[in-house]
Every structure is written in structure tokens, then in C-alpha cells.
């Protein structure tokens, strides 16, 4: 299921309140709960080699900025992923002279995983290849939805859009994805 963040209850007010008061255990719990999605999101943004550092930097900024966090439609998860977007953007700016970090075609984790090459013909790989052909905006929107596990409302808050616009853009992106799958198949 893709809405992992919501299901896991990362936005529990008690945990966040404890984190606000500098409770290391609360931050530990938040980091553990966020990490798989955060890292997956950042793998796609900055590449697998730098994703751990970027995740750590994201949490570092979250710790430093928790005093500025306010309850809102984005929720805590959305707030953290908003930070992660900035961290990724900073990273891309810093490494602008280097090659694009996300390998094209199969979505950021194939080059270091030989087994993936063996599976390159299956639907999963087809899906990743098609996904890689979406525009960056489409990719980011879908990544926030399916990897970060944010709701349409949270995604809208992170992207500075309305929830309806996010739903519409999501439908279009998925339609585009289906088109790409058809083209690849043909």
C-alpha cells in the first residue's frame, strides 16, 4: 500500500510534541518511520550514492527547524518532505557540473543492482522505464504520493498547490504513464 505514512501514524501529535521538546527517542522514532520513504524519495532525487547523506541532512534541518513547524495540511511528514525537496535541490545545484544523478530508464537503482538487469523485461522494469520518461514535475508529484506516502492534501501543501489541482495533475501523469507503457510495449 502506498499511503504508508498515514497508516503508520507518523503524525502522532504526542511524538511530535516530544520531538519539539528535544526528546531523542521521539526523533529516533520519527526518523525510523520516515526513513524508508525519505531515502527512496531522495534516491530518486539525488541518486543512490548521496541519498543517505541527503536523508540525514533533511533530518538535521528538521531538528534545527522544529520550532518553526506548525500544524497544517502538510502534516509533519509533508513538512519533512518539503525540507527534503530543498535538500535535493541544494544538492543538484552543488553538483550541477556532474552528470544527472538518477540513472535514466530504470529509476535510480538499477546500475548498482545487477539482478535488476536480469529482470529488465518484466513489468516492474517497464514501469520504471516509463516513469523515467515522465516530466520532472510529474515524477515529483507521483513520488510524493507513492514514495513519500503523502495524501493529495499533503502533496498540495508541499508543492504549494490546491488539492484539486494535485488530483488532476496526478490523473494526467498516470494517463501519461499508461501511454508510455503502451508505446514501449508496441
Amino acid at each position, binding site marked *: *500500500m*502506498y499511503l504508508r505514512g498515514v497508516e503508520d501514524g507518523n503524525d502522532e501529535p504526542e511524538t511530535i510534541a516530544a*520531538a519539539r521538546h*528535544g*526528546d*531523542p527517542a521521539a*526523533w*529516533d522514532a520519527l*526518523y*525510523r518511520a520516515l*526513513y*524508508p*520513504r525519505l*531515502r*527512496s524519495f531522495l*534516491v*530518486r532525487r539525488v541518486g*543512490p550514492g548521496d*541519498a*543517505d*547523506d*541527503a*536523508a*540525514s*541532512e533533511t*533530518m*538535521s*534541518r528538521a*531538528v*534545527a527547524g522544529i520550532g518553526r513547524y506548525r500544524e497544517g495540511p502538510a502534516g509533519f511528514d509533508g513538512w519533512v518532505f518539503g525540507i527534503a525537496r530543498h535538500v535535493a535541490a541544494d544538492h543538484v545545484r552543488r553538483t550541477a557540473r556532474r552528470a544527472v544523478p538518477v540513472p535514466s530508464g530504470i*529509476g*535510480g*537503482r538499477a546500475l548498482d543492482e545487477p539482478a535488476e538487469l536480469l529482470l529488465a523485461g*518484466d*513489468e*516492474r522494469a*517497464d*514501469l*520504471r522505464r516509463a*516513469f523515467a520518461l515522465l516530466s520532472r514535475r510529474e515524477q515529483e508529484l*507521483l*513520488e510524493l*504520493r*507513492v*514514495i513519500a*506516502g503523502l495524501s493529495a492534501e499533503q502533496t498540495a501543501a508541499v508543492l504549494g498547490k490546491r488539492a484539486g489541482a494535485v488530483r488532476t495533475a*496526478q*490523473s494526467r501523469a*498516470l494517463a501519461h*504513464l*499508461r501511454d508510455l*507503457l*503502451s508505446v514501449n*510495449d508496441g
Partner: protein
Amino acid sequence: MADPRSLSDEELLAQLADSLASDVSEPTAEALTTLRAQVLEQGTTLTDRERRRRSRHLGWRASPAWHGGSGWIPRVWAGALAAGVIAAGTAAGLAVALGGSTAPVVGTVGTVGAVRSAQMVLSADVSHHKAQPAVIARDIRTLTTRLSDLPRPQRPGLGSGPASAIAAACTELRTRNAGAPPPQRIPLPPGCQPKGLPPGVLPPPRPPPGAPPPIPGSGQGSGPGSGPRSGPGQGAPPGQPT
């Protein structure tokens, strides 16, 4: 796996999630340690002076791990962070100096702060002389090399940079060497050799704090003049009241 083209939006989203997610499910122990340390750092009200005092007590015992980092703050500094004995900026400084990642703390310090912190801890640890001299020498060589590669700070007014960090490290090293018997002296890295001195020849050590200033060997003296500040006043002309 079902054909993605025949799936509903919700099903396709779920399949995308399955296809795009990476496999790692746990942050590394180092990442968690660093985060905990930063949380503690946020909540602490230690002064810089107190941090320095505590960092001296950290010693150098774990310095062999210094070179064991693989893109992270080396384990020893993460541990020191966790123990609250050094500041986040300090760890960042060391990480920068050694070419490691500053990601866990880079949000709180910039290059300038990092270099200054590296300077601070280096000085504290060298003067604490808990390590084997060879280990210290090796680490200082690494540090000076890396610091030399750093760009000079761009922000005005902060006043510290790689050059001063290296100078401070060299000064500490010379001071330590001056008080140590020859077998325990640490070879100065190339960056410490002052111009005009052949390798192996050390400049005189710095005077200890509080020592009187050096006596100049030559020069013209100067001092206050002497003589009456005022002479007798002029009297009134004869026949006039004063």
C-alpha cells in the same frame, strides 16, 4: 504482476510504489547516533568554553577510527557528539577537514564555522597528547592537506580560514614538541615549515601565556619629556592692579 495499463489509478499508484521504492528500511546506526546527538545539542545550553573543556577530556583514544569514515562523520566524532562533548559544528569541521560528509550537521554550520571548529578540536587534542605521536602526526598531515584545499571563507567578518587553522595546528605542535624529549617529538608536516628554515629545524617555541613581551634588541627609545609645565607669569605693569 498485473499489466499496469489495465489498472485503476489507485492500483497503478500502488504498483508504482512497489516498483520505485528502494530496499533500505532502517537508517544506519551512525545516522541515528548523529541525529540523537544533534537533538541533544539543540537542547543544551553549554557555552563554547565548556564544550572546549569537555572536548579536551575526550582525548584521542579513538583517533585510529578517524580514517575509517566512509562518507559519514567518522564514528568517533559521532560518538563524541552523542556524548555531548563536542558541538555539531566541531564534527562538521572535522568531517570537512577530512573530506567526509557534513550532511548530518551541515545545516547548522558553514565552511567558516567548520574550519574554526576543526581548528579548535585539533588544538585541544594535540595539546592533550593522549595519542601516539605517529598517529597525531599522520592525522595532522591529513588535516593540513585537506584544509589547504578548502576555499577561503567568503563571509566577511568571521576572520578564520584554512591558513589560520593550519597555523594554529602547527603552533600547537611546536609548543608540544618544545616540551617533549626528542623521541616523543612529532615531525612537523610540510605545511608547518616556515620559509627559510630547512626541514627538521624548528623555530623557537612561542612564549607561554602571560609571559612578558620580548625585549627589543635595538631601536631608538622614546619617553616622556621633562621640564616645567609653565613658567612664571607676567606681572602687571607698574602702577596697575593685578
